[in-house]
Protein backbone atom coordinates (compact mmCIF):
# COMPACT_ATOMS: atom_id res chain seq x y z
CA UNK A 1 0.00 0.00 0.00
CA UNK A 2 2.54 2.47 1.16
CA UNK A 3 4.90 1.62 -1.60
CA UNK A 4 2.56 2.66 -4.29
CA UNK A 5 1.53 5.79 -2.53
CA UNK A 6 5.12 6.77 -2.31
CA UNK A 7 5.73 5.84 -5.87
CA UNK A 8 2.76 7.94 -6.74
CA UNK A 9 4.87 10.96 -6.09
CA UNK A 10 6.62 10.29 -9.32
CA UNK A 11 3.84 8.70 -11.33
CA UNK A 12 1.46 10.61 -13.50
CA UNK A 13 -1.91 11.80 -12.46
CA UNK A 14 -4.64 13.22 -14.58
CA UNK A 15 -3.99 16.72 -13.44
CA UNK A 16 -0.37 16.63 -14.55
CA UNK A 17 0.19 19.22 -17.16
CA UNK A 18 0.08 17.72 -20.63
CA UNK A 19 3.53 17.45 -22.11
CA UNK A 20 4.47 20.59 -23.93
CA UNK A 21 4.73 20.14 -27.66
CA UNK A 22 8.23 18.88 -28.25
CA UNK A 23 10.38 20.95 -30.47
CA UNK A 24 13.83 20.72 -31.97
CA UNK A 25 16.53 18.58 -30.44
CA UNK A 26 14.52 17.90 -27.29
CA UNK A 27 11.84 16.26 -29.40
CA UNK A 28 14.42 14.25 -31.24
CA UNK A 29 15.94 13.09 -28.00
CA UNK A 30 12.58 12.11 -26.57
CA UNK A 31 11.71 10.12 -29.63
CA UNK A 32 15.13 8.52 -29.64
CA UNK A 33 14.63 7.44 -26.03
CA UNK A 34 11.72 5.34 -27.17
CA UNK A 35 12.95 4.52 -30.66
CA UNK A 36 16.18 2.74 -29.83
CA UNK A 37 14.81 0.29 -27.28
CA UNK A 38 11.82 -0.26 -29.55
CA UNK A 39 14.16 -1.02 -32.43
CA UNK A 40 16.24 -3.37 -30.26
CA UNK A 41 13.11 -5.11 -29.06
CA UNK A 42 11.89 -5.37 -32.64
CA UNK A 43 15.20 -6.93 -33.59
CA UNK A 44 14.97 -9.48 -30.76
CA UNK A 45 11.38 -10.35 -31.64
CA UNK A 46 12.25 -10.64 -35.33
CA UNK A 47 15.20 -12.91 -34.56
CA UNK A 48 13.17 -15.18 -32.30
CA UNK A 49 9.86 -15.32 -34.12
CA UNK A 50 10.63 -14.71 -37.81
CA UNK A 51 14.27 -15.46 -38.50
CA UNK A 52 13.97 -19.25 -38.01
CA UNK A 53 11.52 -19.29 -40.93
CA UNK A 54 13.76 -17.27 -43.24
CA UNK A 55 17.27 -18.46 -42.52
CA UNK A 56 18.56 -22.04 -42.72
CA UNK A 57 18.64 -22.47 -38.95
CA UNK A 58 18.50 -26.02 -37.58
CA UNK A 59 15.80 -27.11 -35.17
CA UNK A 60 16.53 -26.54 -31.46
CA UNK A 61 16.33 -30.27 -30.75
CA UNK A 62 17.25 -33.24 -32.88
CA UNK A 63 20.89 -32.37 -33.58
CA UNK A 64 23.48 -35.09 -34.02
CA UNK A 65 24.98 -36.13 -30.71
CA UNK A 66 28.26 -36.72 -32.50
CA UNK A 67 28.53 -32.92 -32.76
CA UNK A 68 28.24 -32.67 -29.00
CA UNK A 69 29.72 -29.61 -27.24
CA UNK A 70 31.35 -27.90 -30.21
CA UNK A 71 32.95 -24.56 -29.27
CA UNK A 72 31.57 -21.23 -30.41
CA UNK A 73 32.33 -20.16 -33.99
CA UNK A 74 32.39 -23.72 -35.29
CA UNK A 75 31.43 -24.08 -38.94
CA UNK A 76 27.65 -24.23 -39.20
CA UNK A 77 27.28 -23.58 -35.46
CA UNK A 78 28.25 -19.96 -34.75
CA UNK A 79 27.42 -20.27 -31.03
CA UNK A 80 28.60 -23.90 -30.77
CA UNK A 81 26.48 -26.86 -29.70
CA UNK A 82 25.10 -28.22 -26.46
CA UNK A 83 25.83 -31.69 -24.98
CA UNK A 84 23.19 -33.23 -27.25
CA UNK A 85 24.74 -31.67 -30.35
CA UNK A 86 21.95 -29.14 -30.78
CA UNK A 87 22.79 -25.77 -32.29
CA UNK A 88 23.00 -23.17 -29.51
CA UNK A 89 22.06 -20.30 -31.85
CA UNK A 90 18.87 -22.09 -32.74
CA UNK A 91 18.15 -22.85 -29.09
CA UNK A 92 18.68 -19.21 -28.17
CA UNK A 93 16.19 -18.14 -30.86
CA UNK A 94 13.55 -20.76 -30.08
CA UNK A 95 14.19 -20.41 -26.34
CA UNK A 96 13.54 -16.71 -26.72
CA UNK A 97 10.06 -17.45 -28.00
CA UNK A 98 9.25 -19.41 -24.86
CA UNK A 99 10.86 -16.91 -22.50
CA UNK A 100 9.22 -13.90 -24.12
CA UNK A 101 5.82 -15.58 -24.33
CA UNK A 102 5.99 -16.64 -20.69
CA UNK A 103 6.98 -13.13 -19.65
CA UNK A 104 4.22 -11.55 -21.72
CA UNK A 105 1.57 -13.94 -20.46
CA UNK A 106 2.57 -13.51 -16.83
CA UNK A 107 2.41 -9.75 -17.12
CA UNK A 108 -0.86 -9.80 -19.06
CA UNK A 109 -2.43 -11.95 -16.35
CA UNK A 110 -1.04 -9.57 -13.75
CA UNK A 111 -2.34 -6.60 -15.69
CA UNK A 112 -5.81 -8.03 -16.23
CA UNK A 113 -6.49 -9.79 -12.93
CA UNK A 114 -4.24 -7.86 -10.57
CA UNK A 115 -4.92 -4.54 -12.23
CA UNK A 116 -8.66 -5.20 -12.36
CA UNK A 117 -8.95 -6.34 -8.76
CA UNK A 118 -6.74 -3.51 -7.56
CA UNK A 119 -8.84 -0.93 -9.39
CA UNK A 120 -12.05 -2.44 -8.05
CA UNK A 121 -10.64 -2.52 -4.51
CA UNK A 122 -9.55 1.10 -4.76
CA UNK A 123 -12.86 2.13 -6.21
CA UNK A 124 -15.00 0.23 -3.72
CA UNK A 125 -13.09 1.22 -0.61
CA UNK A 126 -14.28 -0.02 2.76
CA UNK A 127 -14.74 -3.68 3.47
CA UNK A 128 -14.44 -4.85 -0.14
CA UNK A 129 -11.12 -3.08 -0.43
CA UNK A 130 -9.89 -4.60 2.83
CA UNK A 131 -10.86 -8.13 1.85
CA UNK A 132 -9.23 -8.01 -1.57
CA UNK A 133 -6.06 -6.35 -0.39
CA UNK A 134 -5.65 -8.61 2.68
CA UNK A 135 -5.79 -11.60 0.34
CA UNK A 136 -2.95 -10.14 -1.67
CA UNK A 137 -1.09 -9.27 1.52
CA UNK A 138 -1.18 -12.96 2.36
CA UNK A 139 0.46 -13.83 -0.95
CA UNK A 140 3.06 -11.12 -0.49
CA UNK A 141 3.84 -12.12 3.09
CA UNK A 142 4.74 -15.71 2.19
CA UNK A 143 8.44 -15.98 1.34
CA UNK A 144 8.43 -15.98 -2.43
CA UNK A 145 10.55 -19.10 -2.64
CA UNK A 146 8.18 -21.16 -0.52
CA UNK A 147 5.24 -20.03 -2.60
CA UNK A 148 6.88 -20.54 -5.96
CA UNK A 149 8.24 -24.00 -5.19
CA UNK A 150 5.04 -25.22 -3.60
CA UNK A 151 2.84 -23.91 -6.42
CA UNK A 152 5.17 -25.13 -9.13
CA UNK A 153 5.45 -28.63 -7.61
CA UNK A 154 1.68 -28.83 -7.21
CA UNK A 155 0.99 -27.78 -10.79
CA UNK A 156 3.78 -29.78 -12.41
CA UNK A 157 6.10 -28.70 -15.20
CA UNK A 158 5.28 -27.16 -18.58
CA UNK A 159 4.85 -23.74 -20.14
CA UNK A 160 1.27 -23.18 -19.00
CA UNK A 161 2.00 -24.15 -15.41
CA UNK A 162 5.13 -22.01 -15.32
CA UNK A 163 3.01 -19.05 -16.40
CA UNK A 164 0.44 -19.77 -13.69
CA UNK A 165 3.17 -20.13 -11.05
CA UNK A 166 4.80 -16.84 -11.93
CA UNK A 167 1.42 -15.12 -12.05
CA UNK A 168 1.29 -15.62 -8.28
CA UNK A 169 3.96 -12.92 -8.15
CA UNK A 170 2.69 -10.52 -10.75
CA UNK A 171 -0.96 -10.36 -9.71
CA UNK A 172 -0.46 -8.90 -6.19
CA UNK A 173 2.11 -6.42 -7.44
CA UNK A 174 -0.16 -5.11 -10.19
CA UNK A 175 -3.06 -5.01 -7.75
CA UNK A 176 -1.18 -2.77 -5.36
CA UNK A 177 -0.22 -0.30 -8.03
CA UNK A 178 -3.68 -0.24 -9.62
CA UNK A 179 -5.28 0.31 -6.25
CA UNK A 180 -3.00 3.18 -5.28
CA UNK A 181 -3.50 4.88 -8.63
CA UNK A 182 -7.26 4.44 -8.36
CA UNK A 183 -7.24 6.00 -4.91
CA UNK A 184 -5.56 9.05 -6.37
CA UNK A 185 -8.38 9.33 -8.89
CA UNK A 186 -11.18 9.10 -6.36
CA UNK A 187 -11.37 12.80 -5.63
CA UNK A 188 -11.23 13.80 -9.30
CA UNK A 189 -14.32 15.68 -10.52
CA UNK A 190 -15.19 13.14 -13.22
CA UNK A 191 -15.08 10.32 -10.70
CA UNK A 192 -17.26 12.19 -8.27
CA UNK A 193 -19.65 12.92 -11.13
CA UNK A 194 -19.74 9.30 -12.20
CA UNK A 195 -20.47 8.24 -8.64
CA UNK A 196 -23.25 10.79 -8.21
CA UNK A 197 -24.85 9.84 -11.51
CA UNK A 198 -24.96 6.18 -10.43
CA UNK A 199 -22.81 4.81 -13.25
CA UNK A 200 -22.37 1.02 -12.77
CA UNK A 201 -19.04 -0.09 -11.37
CA UNK A 202 -17.82 -2.04 -14.40
CA UNK A 203 -18.41 1.03 -16.51
CA UNK A 204 -16.53 3.28 -14.11
CA UNK A 205 -13.63 0.87 -14.01
CA UNK A 206 -13.46 0.47 -17.76
CA UNK A 207 -14.29 3.99 -18.88
CA UNK A 208 -12.72 6.14 -16.22
CA UNK A 209 -10.21 4.21 -14.17
CA UNK A 210 -8.57 2.01 -16.79
CA UNK A 211 -7.46 4.83 -19.11
CA UNK A 212 -5.91 6.73 -16.23
CA UNK A 213 -4.31 3.83 -14.41
CA UNK A 214 -3.20 2.12 -17.62
CA UNK A 215 0.02 4.07 -18.27
CA UNK A 216 1.63 3.34 -14.92
CA UNK A 217 0.60 -0.30 -15.11
CA UNK A 218 2.07 -0.49 -18.59
CA UNK A 219 5.40 0.92 -17.51
CA UNK A 220 5.43 -1.43 -14.56
CA UNK A 221 4.72 -4.32 -16.92
CA UNK A 222 7.65 -3.32 -19.12
CA UNK A 223 9.99 -3.56 -16.15
CA UNK A 224 8.23 -6.70 -14.97
CA UNK A 225 8.86 -8.52 -18.25
CA UNK A 226 12.58 -8.61 -17.58
CA UNK A 227 12.08 -9.66 -13.98
CA UNK A 228 9.87 -12.58 -15.01
CA UNK A 229 12.47 -13.83 -17.48
CA UNK A 230 15.10 -13.88 -14.73
CA UNK A 231 12.79 -15.61 -12.23
CA UNK A 232 11.97 -18.23 -14.83
CA UNK A 233 15.68 -19.04 -14.78
CA UNK A 234 15.62 -19.33 -10.99
CA UNK A 235 12.78 -21.84 -11.29
CA UNK A 236 14.86 -23.84 -13.74
CA UNK A 237 17.79 -23.75 -11.32
CA UNK A 238 15.57 -25.43 -8.74
CA UNK A 239 14.65 -28.11 -11.29
CA UNK A 240 11.21 -26.66 -12.01
CA UNK A 241 9.87 -24.49 -14.80
CA UNK A 242 10.10 -25.10 -18.54
CA UNK A 243 10.69 -28.76 -19.23
CA UNK A 244 13.71 -29.93 -21.14
CA UNK A 245 14.51 -30.47 -23.96
CA UNK A 246 12.33 -27.50 -24.99
CA UNK A 247 14.64 -24.53 -24.64
CA UNK A 248 14.03 -21.33 -22.72
CA UNK A 249 16.70 -18.83 -21.82
CA UNK A 250 16.13 -19.66 -18.18
CA UNK A 251 16.59 -23.40 -18.48
CA UNK A 252 19.53 -23.03 -20.89
CA UNK A 253 21.37 -20.85 -18.38
CA UNK A 254 20.39 -23.06 -15.46
CA UNK A 255 21.61 -26.22 -17.24
CA UNK A 256 24.72 -24.52 -18.55
CA UNK A 257 25.88 -23.40 -15.11
CA UNK A 258 26.10 -27.05 -14.03
CA UNK A 259 29.42 -27.17 -15.90
CA UNK A 260 30.12 -23.45 -16.08
CA UNK A 261 33.90 -23.64 -16.13
CA UNK A 262 33.92 -26.47 -18.67
CA UNK A 263 31.40 -25.08 -21.16
CA UNK A 264 30.94 -21.35 -20.57
CA UNK A 265 29.29 -20.78 -23.95
CA UNK A 266 26.23 -22.73 -22.81
CA UNK A 267 25.62 -19.85 -20.38
CA UNK A 268 27.14 -16.96 -22.30
CA UNK A 269 24.86 -16.82 -25.36
CA UNK A 270 21.45 -17.09 -23.69
CA UNK A 271 22.67 -14.59 -21.07
CA UNK A 272 23.53 -12.08 -23.79
CA UNK A 273 20.11 -12.59 -25.40
CA UNK A 274 18.42 -12.15 -22.04
CA UNK A 275 20.44 -9.02 -21.34
CA UNK A 276 19.54 -7.39 -24.66
CA UNK A 277 15.87 -8.16 -24.16
CA UNK A 278 15.81 -6.87 -20.60
CA UNK A 279 17.61 -3.71 -21.70
CA UNK A 280 15.06 -3.19 -24.47
CA UNK A 281 12.06 -3.69 -22.20
CA UNK A 282 13.49 -1.58 -19.38
CA UNK A 283 14.55 1.32 -21.57
CA UNK A 284 11.27 1.23 -23.42
CA UNK A 285 9.44 1.28 -20.10
CA UNK A 286 11.51 4.22 -18.90
CA UNK A 287 11.04 6.05 -22.17
CA UNK A 288 7.28 5.60 -22.08
CA UNK A 289 7.12 6.55 -18.43
CA UNK A 290 9.08 9.64 -19.12
CA UNK A 291 6.79 10.56 -22.01
CA UNK A 292 3.60 9.92 -20.04
CA UNK A 293 4.83 11.79 -17.01
CA UNK A 294 5.37 14.92 -18.99
CA UNK A 295 8.70 14.54 -20.60
CA UNK A 296 11.00 14.23 -17.66
Amino acid at each position, binding site marked *: MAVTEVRGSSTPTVDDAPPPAPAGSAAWRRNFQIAWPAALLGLVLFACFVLPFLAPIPKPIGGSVLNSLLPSFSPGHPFGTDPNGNDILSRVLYGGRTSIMVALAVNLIGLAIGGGLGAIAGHLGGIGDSVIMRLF*DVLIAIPSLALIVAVSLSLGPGVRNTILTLAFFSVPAFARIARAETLRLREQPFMVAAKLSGTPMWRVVLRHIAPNVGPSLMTFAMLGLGVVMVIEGALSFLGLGIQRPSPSWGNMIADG*QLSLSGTPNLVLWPSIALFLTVVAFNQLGEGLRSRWSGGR
Partner: protein
Amino acid sequence: MTDVAQSGPAPRIISAVLGSPALRLIVKRLLTAIPILLGVSILMFVLLNLLPGSAALQLLGPQATPEQIAKLNDELGFNRPPVQRYLEWLGNFVRGDLGKSIVSKQPVAQVLPEKLAVTGELVALAFVISLGVAIPLALWAARRPNKIFDRISGLFTTAGLSLANYVLALLLGLAFAVKLPWFPSFGFTSISKGLGNNLYSLFLPAVALAFPLLCFYARFLRSDLVDQLQGEDYVMTARAKGLGPWRVLLRHAFRNSSFGLITIVGLNISTLIGATVIIERIFALPGIGAYLLDGILTRDYTRVQAIVMIFALITVLANLAADVLYAVLDPRIRYGSN
Protein backbone atom coordinates in the same frame (compact mmCIF):
# COMPACT_ATOMS: atom_id res chain seq x y z
CA MET B 1 -8.33 3.02 20.71
CA THR B 2 -9.48 6.56 20.04
CA ASP B 3 -12.45 6.13 22.34
CA VAL B 4 -10.23 5.22 25.24
CA ALA B 5 -7.92 8.08 24.54
CA GLN B 6 -10.61 10.68 24.24
CA SER B 7 -13.22 9.69 26.78
CA GLY B 8 -11.20 7.86 29.41
CA PRO B 9 -10.12 9.58 32.59
CA ALA B 10 -6.54 8.52 31.93
CA PRO B 11 -3.78 10.97 32.73
CA ARG B 12 -3.03 13.34 29.93
CA ILE B 13 0.28 11.77 29.06
CA ILE B 14 -1.27 8.36 28.41
CA SER B 15 -4.09 9.82 26.44
CA ALA B 16 -1.55 11.75 24.40
CA VAL B 17 0.38 8.56 23.67
CA LEU B 18 -2.68 6.48 22.93
CA GLY B 19 -4.14 9.25 20.88
CA SER B 20 -0.95 9.65 18.96
CA PRO B 21 -1.58 8.96 15.33
CA ALA B 22 1.67 6.99 15.05
CA LEU B 23 0.57 4.57 17.76
CA ARG B 24 -2.88 4.21 16.27
CA LEU B 25 -1.27 3.32 12.98
CA ILE B 26 0.96 0.74 14.65
CA VAL B 27 -1.88 -0.86 16.60
CA LYS B 28 -4.14 -0.93 13.58
CA ARG B 29 -1.49 -2.53 11.43
CA LEU B 30 -0.59 -5.08 14.09
CA LEU B 31 -4.24 -6.08 14.30
CA THR B 32 -4.49 -6.57 10.54
CA ALA B 33 -1.38 -8.74 10.80
CA ILE B 34 -3.39 -11.44 12.59
CA PRO B 35 -5.71 -12.35 9.71
CA ILE B 36 -2.76 -12.11 7.32
CA LEU B 37 -0.69 -14.55 9.37
CA LEU B 38 -3.65 -16.89 9.69
CA GLY B 39 -4.19 -16.72 5.94
CA VAL B 40 -0.51 -17.37 5.30
CA SER B 41 -0.52 -20.46 7.49
CA ILE B 42 -3.68 -21.86 5.91
CA LEU B 43 -2.55 -21.23 2.35
CA MET B 44 0.87 -22.75 2.96
CA PHE B 45 -0.64 -25.79 4.65
CA VAL B 46 -3.07 -26.33 1.79
CA LEU B 47 -0.29 -26.00 -0.77
CA LEU B 48 1.89 -28.51 1.07
CA ASN B 49 -1.00 -30.97 1.10
CA LEU B 50 -1.60 -30.48 -2.62
CA LEU B 51 1.91 -31.53 -3.58
CA PRO B 52 2.03 -34.81 -5.51
CA GLY B 53 3.71 -37.70 -3.75
CA SER B 54 4.22 -37.81 -0.03
CA ALA B 55 6.73 -37.10 2.69
CA ALA B 56 7.68 -40.77 2.91
CA LEU B 57 8.26 -41.03 -0.81
CA GLN B 58 10.56 -38.02 -0.75
CA LEU B 59 12.48 -39.46 2.16
CA LEU B 60 12.75 -43.02 0.88
CA GLY B 61 13.59 -42.22 -2.72
CA PRO B 62 12.66 -43.89 -6.00
CA GLN B 63 13.44 -47.38 -4.77
CA ALA B 64 10.82 -47.60 -2.07
CA THR B 65 7.90 -49.99 -2.39
CA PRO B 66 4.33 -48.74 -1.87
CA GLU B 67 4.19 -50.71 1.41
CA GLN B 68 7.32 -49.01 2.77
CA ILE B 69 5.92 -45.63 1.77
CA ALA B 70 2.56 -46.26 3.45
CA LYS B 71 4.24 -47.47 6.63
CA LEU B 72 6.51 -44.45 6.94
CA ASN B 73 3.69 -42.02 6.15
CA ASP B 74 1.73 -43.57 8.98
CA GLU B 75 4.66 -43.27 11.35
CA LEU B 76 5.14 -39.62 10.40
CA GLY B 77 1.49 -38.98 11.27
CA PHE B 78 0.27 -38.28 7.76
CA ASN B 79 -2.58 -40.76 8.14
CA ARG B 80 -4.50 -38.22 10.21
CA PRO B 81 -6.81 -35.84 8.33
CA PRO B 82 -5.14 -32.59 7.21
CA VAL B 83 -7.62 -30.42 9.10
CA GLN B 84 -6.78 -32.18 12.35
CA ARG B 85 -3.06 -31.83 11.71
CA TYR B 86 -3.46 -28.14 10.93
CA LEU B 87 -5.51 -27.43 14.04
CA GLU B 88 -3.00 -29.29 16.21
CA TRP B 89 -0.20 -27.29 14.69
CA LEU B 90 -2.11 -24.02 15.13
CA GLY B 91 -2.93 -24.82 18.75
CA ASN B 92 0.74 -25.43 19.51
CA PHE B 93 1.82 -22.39 17.55
CA VAL B 94 -0.52 -20.09 19.41
CA ARG B 95 0.90 -21.43 22.66
CA GLY B 96 4.37 -20.57 21.37
CA ASP B 97 5.37 -24.16 20.64
CA LEU B 98 6.84 -24.52 17.15
CA GLY B 99 6.85 -28.29 17.45
CA LYS B 100 9.34 -30.87 16.26
CA SER B 101 10.43 -31.27 12.68
CA ILE B 102 8.41 -34.12 11.17
CA VAL B 103 11.48 -35.40 9.37
CA SER B 104 14.43 -34.95 11.71
CA LYS B 105 12.51 -35.04 15.02
CA GLN B 106 14.57 -32.05 16.16
CA PRO B 107 12.65 -29.27 17.92
CA VAL B 108 12.27 -26.52 15.31
CA ALA B 109 12.87 -23.83 17.92
CA GLN B 110 16.23 -25.42 18.68
CA VAL B 111 17.52 -25.45 15.08
CA LEU B 112 15.97 -22.24 13.82
CA PRO B 113 17.87 -19.51 15.72
CA GLU B 114 21.28 -20.55 14.38
CA LYS B 115 20.03 -20.78 10.80
CA LEU B 116 18.09 -17.54 11.08
CA ALA B 117 21.22 -15.82 12.31
CA VAL B 118 23.20 -16.91 9.25
CA THR B 119 20.51 -15.80 6.82
CA GLY B 120 19.81 -12.62 8.77
CA GLU B 121 23.45 -11.68 8.72
CA LEU B 122 23.71 -12.46 5.01
CA VAL B 123 20.68 -10.35 4.17
CA ALA B 124 21.81 -7.48 6.38
CA LEU B 125 25.22 -7.45 4.78
CA ALA B 126 23.63 -7.57 1.34
CA PHE B 127 21.47 -4.56 2.20
CA VAL B 128 24.48 -2.62 3.44
CA ILE B 129 26.46 -3.39 0.28
CA SER B 130 23.57 -2.70 -2.07
CA LEU B 131 22.54 0.59 -0.49
CA GLY B 132 26.15 1.59 0.03
CA VAL B 133 26.79 1.34 -3.69
CA ALA B 134 23.36 2.19 -5.06
CA ILE B 135 22.93 5.56 -3.34
CA PRO B 136 26.21 7.16 -4.50
CA LEU B 137 25.72 5.62 -7.94
CA ALA B 138 22.22 7.02 -8.28
CA LEU B 139 23.22 10.45 -6.96
CA TRP B 140 26.09 10.69 -9.37
CA ALA B 141 23.93 9.52 -12.28
CA ALA B 142 21.06 11.85 -11.41
CA ARG B 143 23.32 14.87 -11.15
CA ARG B 144 23.65 14.94 -14.92
CA PRO B 145 20.79 12.89 -16.35
CA ASN B 146 21.30 11.32 -19.75
CA LYS B 147 24.97 12.24 -19.78
CA ILE B 148 27.68 9.68 -20.19
CA PHE B 149 27.92 8.46 -16.58
CA ASP B 150 24.16 8.13 -16.32
CA ARG B 151 24.08 6.13 -19.54
CA ILE B 152 26.85 3.78 -18.49
CA SER B 153 25.43 3.21 -15.04
CA GLY B 154 22.03 2.66 -16.68
CA LEU B 155 23.41 -0.12 -18.85
CA PHE B 156 25.38 -1.58 -15.96
CA THR B 157 22.37 -1.73 -13.69
CA THR B 158 20.18 -3.24 -16.42
CA ALA B 159 22.84 -5.87 -16.96
CA GLY B 160 22.73 -6.59 -13.25
CA LEU B 161 18.97 -7.04 -13.36
CA SER B 162 19.23 -9.50 -16.24
CA LEU B 163 22.03 -11.62 -14.76
CA ALA B 164 20.98 -14.84 -13.07
CA ASN B 165 22.20 -14.67 -9.47
CA TYR B 166 23.45 -18.26 -9.47
CA VAL B 167 25.68 -17.56 -12.47
CA LEU B 168 26.96 -14.45 -10.73
CA ALA B 169 27.62 -16.46 -7.57
CA LEU B 170 29.66 -19.05 -9.47
CA LEU B 171 31.56 -16.38 -11.42
CA LEU B 172 32.43 -14.55 -8.19
CA GLY B 173 33.69 -17.85 -6.78
CA LEU B 174 35.78 -18.55 -9.87
CA ALA B 175 37.26 -15.06 -9.84
CA PHE B 176 37.78 -14.35 -6.16
CA ALA B 177 38.19 -17.78 -4.62
CA VAL B 178 39.86 -19.81 -7.37
CA LYS B 179 41.81 -17.44 -9.65
CA LEU B 180 42.53 -14.89 -6.94
CA PRO B 181 42.38 -16.82 -3.69
CA TRP B 182 41.08 -13.90 -1.63
CA PHE B 183 37.85 -15.31 -0.24
CA PRO B 184 36.54 -18.76 0.68
CA SER B 185 34.55 -20.45 -2.08
CA PHE B 186 32.07 -21.91 0.38
CA GLY B 187 31.23 -22.24 4.02
CA PHE B 188 30.36 -20.09 6.99
CA THR B 189 32.57 -18.99 9.85
CA SER B 190 30.60 -18.34 13.00
CA ILE B 191 30.79 -14.93 14.60
CA SER B 192 32.20 -16.63 17.69
CA LYS B 193 35.44 -17.06 15.73
CA GLY B 194 35.76 -13.30 15.31
CA LEU B 195 33.71 -10.73 13.45
CA GLY B 196 36.42 -10.34 10.82
CA ASN B 197 36.46 -14.02 9.90
CA ASN B 198 32.70 -14.08 9.99
CA LEU B 199 32.26 -11.16 7.57
CA TYR B 200 35.07 -12.52 5.41
CA SER B 201 33.21 -15.83 4.94
CA LEU B 202 30.00 -14.00 4.04
CA PHE B 203 31.46 -11.42 1.68
CA LEU B 204 31.12 -13.21 -1.68
CA PRO B 205 27.61 -14.54 -0.99
CA ALA B 206 26.52 -11.11 0.18
CA VAL B 207 27.86 -9.50 -2.99
CA ALA B 208 26.09 -12.10 -5.13
CA LEU B 209 22.87 -11.41 -3.25
CA ALA B 210 23.37 -7.65 -3.24
CA PHE B 211 24.17 -7.14 -6.90
CA PRO B 212 20.67 -7.43 -8.41
CA LEU B 213 19.28 -5.43 -5.46
CA LEU B 214 21.89 -2.78 -5.94
CA CYS B 215 20.94 -2.44 -9.59
CA PHE B 216 17.27 -2.26 -8.75
CA TYR B 217 17.74 0.36 -6.03
CA ALA B 218 20.09 2.44 -8.16
CA ARG B 219 17.61 2.49 -11.03
CA PHE B 220 14.69 3.30 -8.79
CA LEU B 221 16.49 6.04 -6.91
CA ARG B 222 18.01 7.57 -10.03
CA SER B 223 14.69 8.01 -11.82
CA ASP B 224 12.97 9.31 -8.70
CA LEU B 225 15.78 11.81 -8.16
CA VAL B 226 15.58 12.96 -11.77
CA ASP B 227 11.84 13.47 -11.39
CA GLN B 228 12.34 15.47 -8.22
CA LEU B 229 15.07 17.59 -9.69
CA GLN B 230 13.20 18.43 -12.84
CA GLY B 231 9.68 18.77 -11.65
CA GLU B 232 9.29 19.83 -8.06
CA ASP B 233 8.78 23.42 -7.02
CA TYR B 234 10.92 23.22 -3.92
CA VAL B 235 13.87 22.20 -6.05
CA MET B 236 13.28 25.23 -8.24
CA THR B 237 13.11 27.38 -5.14
CA ALA B 238 16.27 25.90 -3.73
CA ARG B 239 18.01 26.50 -7.00
CA ALA B 240 16.72 30.01 -7.20
CA LYS B 241 18.13 30.61 -3.74
CA GLY B 242 21.48 29.82 -5.25
CA LEU B 243 22.15 26.45 -3.59
CA GLY B 244 24.80 24.36 -5.34
CA PRO B 245 23.72 21.31 -7.35
CA TRP B 246 25.07 18.78 -4.79
CA ARG B 247 23.29 20.55 -1.97
CA VAL B 248 20.02 20.55 -3.87
CA LEU B 249 20.53 16.91 -4.72
CA LEU B 250 21.40 15.76 -1.22
CA ARG B 251 19.43 18.07 1.03
CA HIS B 252 16.23 18.23 -0.96
CA ALA B 253 15.81 15.71 -3.74
CA PHE B 254 17.46 12.77 -1.98
CA ARG B 255 15.62 13.45 1.23
CA ASN B 256 12.34 13.11 -0.62
CA SER B 257 13.37 10.16 -2.72
CA SER B 258 14.57 8.25 0.30
CA PHE B 259 10.94 7.68 1.35
CA GLY B 260 10.31 5.53 -1.67
CA LEU B 261 13.59 3.71 -1.23
CA ILE B 262 12.80 2.83 2.38
CA THR B 263 9.48 1.35 1.39
CA ILE B 264 10.98 -0.68 -1.42
CA VAL B 265 13.65 -2.04 0.89
CA GLY B 266 10.95 -3.05 3.36
CA LEU B 267 9.00 -4.87 0.69
CA ASN B 268 12.07 -6.66 -0.62
CA ILE B 269 12.59 -8.70 2.51
CA SER B 270 10.22 -11.52 1.67
CA THR B 271 11.48 -11.66 -1.91
CA LEU B 272 15.02 -11.94 -0.65
CA ILE B 273 14.42 -15.24 1.08
CA GLY B 274 13.90 -16.63 -2.42
CA ALA B 275 17.23 -15.36 -3.60
CA THR B 276 19.04 -16.46 -0.45
CA VAL B 277 18.17 -20.11 -0.94
CA ILE B 278 20.08 -20.20 -4.21
CA ILE B 279 23.02 -18.25 -2.83
CA GLU B 280 23.10 -20.34 0.36
CA ARG B 281 23.12 -23.51 -1.69
CA ILE B 282 25.97 -22.45 -3.94
CA PHE B 283 28.12 -21.19 -1.06
CA ALA B 284 27.02 -24.05 1.23
CA LEU B 285 25.90 -21.69 4.00
CA PRO B 286 23.93 -23.27 6.85
CA GLY B 287 21.09 -20.76 6.49
CA ILE B 288 17.33 -20.87 6.54
CA GLY B 289 16.85 -21.04 2.76
CA ALA B 290 18.07 -24.58 2.20
CA TYR B 291 16.31 -25.67 5.40
CA LEU B 292 13.04 -24.25 4.07
CA LEU B 293 13.44 -25.77 0.61
CA ASP B 294 14.18 -29.22 2.03
CA GLY B 295 11.19 -28.77 4.32
CA ILE B 296 8.88 -28.15 1.38
CA LEU B 297 10.23 -31.10 -0.58
CA THR B 298 9.70 -33.44 2.37
CA ARG B 299 6.32 -31.89 3.36
CA ASP B 300 7.83 -31.15 6.76
CA TYR B 301 4.99 -28.81 7.63
CA THR B 302 6.06 -27.95 11.17
CA ARG B 303 9.37 -26.73 9.81
CA VAL B 304 7.90 -24.92 6.79
CA GLN B 305 5.12 -23.26 8.78
CA ALA B 306 7.53 -22.01 11.44
CA ILE B 307 9.79 -20.40 8.86
CA VAL B 308 6.98 -19.03 6.74
CA MET B 309 5.27 -17.50 9.76
CA ILE B 310 8.48 -15.89 10.92
CA PHE B 311 9.07 -14.35 7.53
CA ALA B 312 5.48 -13.25 7.17
CA LEU B 313 5.80 -11.52 10.52
CA ILE B 314 9.07 -9.92 9.47
CA THR B 315 7.47 -8.72 6.25
CA VAL B 316 4.52 -7.21 8.07
CA LEU B 317 6.79 -5.56 10.64
CA ALA B 318 9.19 -4.30 8.00
CA ASN B 319 6.38 -2.69 6.05
CA LEU B 320 5.06 -1.19 9.24
CA ALA B 321 8.51 0.13 10.13
CA ALA B 322 8.83 1.62 6.66
CA ASP B 323 5.46 3.35 7.03
CA VAL B 324 6.35 4.71 10.46
CA LEU B 325 9.73 5.87 9.26
CA TYR B 326 8.07 7.45 6.30
CA ALA B 327 5.63 9.23 8.55
CA VAL B 328 8.44 10.42 10.80
CA LEU B 329 10.36 11.78 7.83
CA ASP B 330 7.35 13.50 6.35
CA PRO B 331 4.83 14.85 8.85
CA ARG B 332 2.43 15.74 6.05
CA ILE B 333 1.48 12.10 5.65
CA ARG B 334 -1.88 11.39 7.17
CA TYR B 335 -1.66 8.37 9.42
CA GLY B 336 -3.70 5.34 8.66
CA SER B 337 -5.65 6.97 5.90
CA ASN B 338 -5.55 6.16 2.28
